[in-house]
């Protein structure tokens, strides 16, 4: 099965884009051309934030060099240019997620703000004391805490879908959790701590059979998998720009138009109104109703450039290459004494969480850092899922399409050094 998948992946790589030339890709990422403590930087922390291709950096610089103006306001040349670029990026995001209309795309600061927006604007008015919100045991804090705040505000109750020892969602248990009081399901697409790819289409279908809306947290999915919100039929989908090779401080909420039409504004201010008097204010149309204040213009335009870059390579190509890398990594790491991989789901994206017998994750991180290797250590802002595995922390190597097999081998060599030092 695995071999077949790999062969299919290689076929896809070969047929559609020629051999995947990782060195050519790496040349697009200036930050990767540096040494750390005299050793080549090995960046294995893309799940925390991805590196930026030159074209994104250039696009942001060009905006400030030649195009800077506020959007949706001025009638002058520059403002029109900036508005066109800004709204052009909205169209790019809509096509990237296969939304049916660009107005279903709202720009926010990141996936976190997106979830807070859905919690406060969509869910709050629908909840009564005793109603239930369903999340999973593998959520990032950003898909836990906004719901806890909402529960405090409304008296609603949080229900949690359990997972098995491989880090896979227990779908039958999820079905059993859906009840007459369930008002919303909010589940992560790809787990940042485990790499698990959740069966989100099935999750949506099961909720919809009970007329319950579903939010998908796609922060870790968007950089790795082709996302089609119409095929998923989800009600909301959120992502963070900086994880898909774009700037920090910009994110996206996709929402079905009929939901967005019915929802009250999230924040008040300029740009989200049609007219204001002290007696009555008329709100602007979707999506502007949700975008109070001057937005993160260069962030949005930069995100548009990042999406062009990623779609230029092709998400299927990226998925196939990263799958090969992940298989190689699992193999290279299996030889390390005392290693245990946390998150062994059958469907998994390019995240490798692991622990070493008798060595704390932070000590692993420090030794690897001295070798020029950047990984994340700790609880990955997902403490409950680590508690599920009885761990205070793990080490996490997260891969992107600019990583190489040689970098994985460097990771394995450095881990042997860790074992030698602490063994």
């Amino acid at each position, binding site marked *: 099965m695995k071999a077949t998948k790999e062969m299919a992946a290689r076929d896809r790589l070969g047929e559609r884009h020629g051999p995947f030339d990782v060195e050519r890709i790496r040349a697009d990422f200036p930050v990767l051309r540096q040494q750390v403590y005299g050793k080549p930087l090995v960046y294995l922390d893309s799940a925390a934030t991805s590196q930026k291709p030159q074209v994104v950096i250039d696009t942001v610089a060009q905006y400030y060099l030649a195009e800077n103006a506020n959007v949706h306001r001025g009638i002058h040349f520059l403002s029109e240019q900036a508005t066109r670029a800004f709204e052009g990026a909205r169209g790019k995001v809509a096509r990237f997620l296969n939304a049916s209309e660009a107005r279903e795309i709202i720009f926010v600061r990141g996936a976190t703000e997106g979830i807070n927006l859905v919690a406060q604007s969509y869910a709050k008015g629908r909840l009564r004391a005793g109603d239930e919100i369903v999340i999973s045991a593998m959520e990032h804090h950003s898909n836990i805490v906004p719901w806890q705040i909402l529960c405090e505000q409304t008296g609603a109750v949080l229900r949690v879908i359990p997972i098995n020892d491989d880090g896979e969602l227990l779908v039958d248990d999820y079905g059993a959790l859906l009840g007459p009081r369930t008002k919303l399901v909010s589940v992560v697409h790809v787990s940042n701590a485990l790499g698990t790819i959740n069966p989100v289409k099935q999750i949506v279908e099961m909720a919809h059979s009970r007329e319950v809306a579903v939010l998908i947290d796609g922060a870790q999915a968007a950089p790795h998998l082709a996302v089609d919100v119409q095929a998923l039929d989800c009600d909301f989908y959120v992502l963070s720009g900086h994880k898909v090779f774009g700037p920090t401080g910009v994110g996206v909420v996709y929402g079905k138009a009929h939901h967005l039409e019915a929802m009250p504004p999230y924040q008040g201010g300029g740009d989200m109104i049609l007219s204001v008097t002290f007696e009555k204010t008329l709100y602007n149309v979707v999506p502007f109703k949700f975008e109070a204040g001057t937005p993160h213009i260069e962030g949005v335009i930069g995100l548009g450039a990042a999406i062009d870059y990623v779609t230029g390579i092709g998400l299927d190509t990226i998925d196939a290459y990263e799958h090969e890398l992940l298989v190689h990594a699992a193999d290279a790491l299996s030889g390390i004494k005392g290693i245990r991989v946390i998150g062994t789901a059958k469907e998994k994206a390019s995240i490798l969480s692991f622990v070493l017998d008798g060595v704390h994750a932070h000590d692993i991180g420090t030794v690897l850092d001295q070798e020029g290797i950047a990984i994340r250590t700790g609880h990955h802002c997902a*403490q409950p899922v*680590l508690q599920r595995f009885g761990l205070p922390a793990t080490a996490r190597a997260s891969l992107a399409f600019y990583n190489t097999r040689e970098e994985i081998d460097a990771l394995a060599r450095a881990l042997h050094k860790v074992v030698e030092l602490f063994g």
Partner: protein
Amino acid sequence: MSDLRELYQEVILDHNRRPRNFQKLEGANRTAEGYNPLCGDEITVYLRLEDALIKDVSFQGSGCAISKASASMMTAAMKGKTVAEAEGLFETFHKMVTADLSITFDPLEVGKLAAFAGVREFPVRVKCATLPWHTLHAAIEGKPEPVSTE
């Protein structure tokens, strides 16, 4: 590996492998909990304090080699010290793990704790080294709320 050996000195690795006073203390009259939310480290310090004298001290918890060895060596150094001596040692230790590299410390004053001088070169690890000390300080003061490094 030479820089790493500055941080992970043999005495630190030894205390990490075989932490001393690593148990709940029977007859403790003070305890305090400490957390490092950044990395999930947690520690409980147990103290038997009599007439401003540390009669006995122990710890439990989970953490990295630096925090575990720091807790282990701290408890070993603290037994029999007066509260004033303990606070003085904390001050010296804190200086040692945060001070400029050019500053040296009197080996007579810091003893085996000199092993932690290398932590200065790893700023992100300073909190690992100081968490047990902050927690002991809280136990001495009898503060009810847990200590956090953030």
